[in-house]
């Protein structure tokens, strides 16, 4: 087994005086897909936001490659990709402009790679249409196009299967699996019936300890 990318030790989070989870410990190894499971309100999104560093209301320890995340925040952020409920797409900008803006602070990406990624998500012909004229599923696909140019080893994907059609779901499942085969680590929450071979599961309880 290789060294875990991300390690959580004794995570505890309370929201609105309700214990979402406590004594939650797990490791994310390279080359794995982990599905975070649990009923609505069990804290799946909260857990992913905590891991991404967007939520500060928790106790415990988070380690990136063996060292606390807090001490190497920029290195961690550079190697982590988070896709949230909100797709991070500006309705007034075109898919190409959106993608370019999202990559701007991370690393230089050639325009050819961007348009290839958009083609890969089935947005051929929509590259220069403002995103507000696209359907919800297409907007989602713009956000997903980022996965095709992503080089981050750790992906945190929150409800990525929302609003995607059957073909898109299949392609995305294949992408996640391929990503794991390449050595990336994927943490995903979904209500879609996702069952990949060798998939890990992380189950959160309904308001109690897992």
């Amino acid at each position: 087994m290789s060294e875990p990318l991300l390690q959580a030790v004794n995570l505890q989070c309370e929201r609105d005086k309700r214990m979402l989870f406590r004594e939650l410990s797990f490791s994310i190894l390279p080359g794995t897909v982990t599905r975070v499971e649990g009923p609505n309100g069990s804290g799946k999104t909260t857990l992913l936001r905590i891991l991404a560093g967007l939520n500060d209301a928790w106790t415990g320890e988070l380690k990136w490659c063996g060292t606390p995340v807090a001490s190497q925040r920029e290195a961690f952020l550079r190697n982590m990709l988070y896709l949230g409920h909100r797709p991070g797409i500006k309705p007034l900008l075109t898919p190409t402009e959106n993608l370019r803006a999202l990559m701007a602070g991370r690393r230089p990406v050639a325009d050819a790679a961007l348009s290839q990624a958009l083609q890969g998500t089935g947005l051929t012909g929509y590259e220069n249409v403002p995103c507000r004229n696209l359907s919800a599923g297409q907007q989602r696909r713009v956000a997903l196009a980022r996965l095709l140019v992503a080089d981050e080893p750790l992906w945190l994907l929150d409800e990525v299967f929302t609003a995607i059609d059957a073909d898109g779901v299949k392609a995305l499942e294949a992408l996640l699996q391929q990503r794991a085969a390449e050595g990336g680590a994927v943490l995903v929450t979904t209500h879609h019936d996702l069952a990949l071979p060798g998939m890990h599961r992380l189950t959160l309880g309904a308001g109690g300890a897992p």
Partner: protein
Amino acid sequence: MNAEVRPAVRLASSSVGVLAAMKGVFARDMRVAFRQRQDLLNPLLFFVMVVTLFPLGVSPEVSFLSEAGAGILWVAALLSVLLSLDHLFRHDFDDGTLEQLVLQPQPLFLLILAKTIAHWMLTGLPLVILTPVLGVMVHLDGNSIAILCLTLLIGTPVLSLIGAIGAALTLGLRSAGVLLSLLIIPLYIPVLIFGTGTVAAAAEGASVGAYLALMGAFLMLALTLAPFAAAAALKISLSNA
């Protein structure tokens, strides 16, 4: 979704330079703003309306206007900036681009500085450009107009920078407008006093060097401290979202 273009998995240690990242943030904000031009006009229109209504509502006398004109323009500019502040982070918060901004492997305060500069160029700078026209309308003399423009040029970035703190703090709230004003206006008062004071001193023929130096100090203080405060406030607001 084929994945031919994807590079292989490895731990990356370097990202793009911070200037390139700031440029990216700035360019996107400008592009979004110019796709929605009517929103750009709102603060300008408000500015023009307030200044136009004063002569009608109070007195069109030249003596009154030339004395109160600088103050009217400054207050109108201040309120106009205040009105535009809620948009600074709100849309980005709603569509999720703010989360992605915070997650960029860059110092957040510099990205926020880039956003604030874009905000100023879209609200404060047009006000400064429009000021000579409105200055003539309220019978200010040439020298006063020049000084007024200069104080607004130094003062409006301070308004945007301080406003960014308030906008970031009130982001998670549903009705942030009133609270934002209550938080921010006390911090705007020194800028207003010295802004109008400079013009008054110039009208009396006194030297304005000291006033301008003080306003420059305000700007430097805001430039260096406000982005840090706004970044911290933004993290708190996102954490509670």
